[in-house]
């Protein structure tokens, strides 16, 4: 049941990303998804393997739920939020970011409830703060990348 729910969430997010109106172009989206994948899988490895503050269940179907969460659900959900942000003004941007982070955290909450991961000296606020930092960090890096792409296009014209 858990695995089916996580697969469905991942599919819905992928469909949502492809049908939504995107502000960012293909290159910017590729840059963001690659960066998100790299940072978030590293973050999960540090928490679950190095510090062992997240204990991931060893059952295969539960481990796949966790893998889906770190490799697909969070990066795609973040990418959707980052594509939505440019359509709103400052205050609404903050609201959308916080709402998005809350929705992503709900997935993590679901994992904790279903015993996919167990917190060992870890707290919910730490996860929310980490997700927010990830969003801000990736947004900053991709802003710099967009500037570089614009500069290169202007230079070649």
């Amino acid at each position, binding site marked *: 049941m858990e695995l089916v729910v996580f697969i469905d969430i991942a599919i819905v997010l992928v469909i949502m990303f492809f049908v939504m109106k995107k502000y960012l172009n*293909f*290159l910017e989206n*590729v*840059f963001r998804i*690659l*960066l998100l*994948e*790299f940072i978030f*899988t*590293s973050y999960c*490895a*540090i928490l679950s*393997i*190095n510090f062992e503050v997240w204990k*991931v269940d*060893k059952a*295969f179907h539960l*481990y796949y739920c966790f*893998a889906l969460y770190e*490799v697909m659900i969070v990066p795609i959900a973040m990418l959707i939020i980052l594509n939505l942000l440019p359509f709103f003004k400052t205050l609404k941007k903050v609201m959308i970011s916080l709402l998005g982070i809350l929705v992503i955290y709900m997935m993590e909450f679901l994992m904790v409830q279903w015993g996919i991961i167990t917190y060992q000296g870890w707290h919910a606020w730490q996860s929310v703060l980490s997700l927010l930092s990830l969003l801000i960090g990736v947004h900053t890096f991709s802003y710099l*990348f967009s500037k*570089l*792409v614009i500069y*290169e*296009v202007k230079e*070649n*014209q």
Partner: protein
Amino acid sequence: MIWPEKFDQNEWFILVFLIIMYAVVFLTPKRFPISTSILVMLFAATVGRVSDHLLSAPQYNLYNIMDQGKYEIFDMLTYILYGAFAYILVYIYDKLGVRHMWTLLYIVVCSVLSVLFESISLTFDVFLYNKWKPIYSLSYYLVMEAMTIYFFNSVNKLQTKKTK
């Protein structure tokens, strides 16, 4: 991230190759936009990171990178090294103008060379195989290098369209 317990041959191997490969990256004449280079390197590092993370996860534990089964700072440097390899792969591909069926030969040759390089790195304990075998790496490199070249071609096409 964890600092290695003992700074020995595998750490030196990664450091030396990191310097050599990035010297090659920076010293070769520029062939494509910096954004393309960044994307190709990031693509290789991320694909390497995700596949290593899934294959060397404690649930499967097919192999480990570096000394410990944990995520060390040198694991990260290994992924950065993958980025330089991918850059050189597409650089030579672009410079030689490899096209059509020659691409297949190019991918096969590069995959075999990658397996050879991995075998050398094995002797330096960069990788510690548990249930993994070198022959599996050949299949892995065939897929990854084909994907890298396809990714490079797609990005390059888009970049060319943008500047027109």
